[in-house]
């Protein structure tokens, strides 16, 4: 492997990384899928906190309800909802791709846009339904 260290080999761009490519929608959505997955990983702490508080008693549950009801709490929950829906729809997209379908230049873009619009739309609808069940915005 001594010849690999000559000056001609040194100038050659080896293993180009992300910043060398023009960003595309499918690429950005692939990154977002991983980011939402990692966010949901730590988001399970919220689910566990809610479950343990419900199991602990009325006072602990009231604390959770108060924190989740603050503006920051609601923003975090809204982000958690979107991350969950987006990761699920992105996962369905990946399952379709796993079968070998939808990989053409038109279909893959269409699927990716549908994931993004679907996740934002479903999140807004779910929160609308949530506020309806709570009896309007408070």
């Amino acid at each position, binding site marked *: 492997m001594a010849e690999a260290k000559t000056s001609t080999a040194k100038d050659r761009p080896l293993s180009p990384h992300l910043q060398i490519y023009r960003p595309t929608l499918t690429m950005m959505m692939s990154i977002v899928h*991983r980011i939402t*997955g*990692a966010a*949901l*990983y730590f988001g*399970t*702490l919220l*689910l*566990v906190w809610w*479950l*343990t508080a*419900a*199991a602990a*008693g*009325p006072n602990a*549950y*009231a604390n959770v309800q108060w924190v989740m009801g603050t503006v920051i709490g609601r923003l975090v929950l809204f982000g958690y909802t979107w991350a*969950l829906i987006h990761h*699920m729809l992105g*996962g*369905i997209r*990946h*399952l379709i791709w*796993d079968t070998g379908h939808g990989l053409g230049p038109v279909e893959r873009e269409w699927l990716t846009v549908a994931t993004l619009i679907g996740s934002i739309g479903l999140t807004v609808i*779910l929160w609308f*339904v*949530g506020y309806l*069940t*709570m*009896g309007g915005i408070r």
Partner: protein
Amino acid sequence: MSDHKPSIRTPLSRVRYLGAARSGTKHFWHQRLTSVALIPLTIGAVFVVIGLLGRNHAAVVQILGSSPVAIGMLLFVLVSIYHMWLGMQVIIEDYVHDELPKYAALMSNTFFSCAVGLTAVFAVLKLSFGL
């Protein structure tokens, strides 16, 4: 492929695709298996949470502790935790290359997943059995 080269691996071990990691495509397959299972489980969990919004503690305990909801929630938690454990392992293996930090991160991933999963399961069971 390389049958002409001497190898201590038997033909049977070669066709089982169980290479040096002794697991073959199990990791990839379980990621897909859990992702399919999580589609109905997540939809169910979201509807349960929406149904519990604004209710008082007694009603929440009664609904979360009822058998179908508790079993669904246990499935959702357990499959989610396994899915996220697998996913975080891939992220760590992609970005952490030095041996010591890598194994520390992989161990932390397992510890975190087990602790979070067991706590959630304990809480659901406690709600259900009313202890």
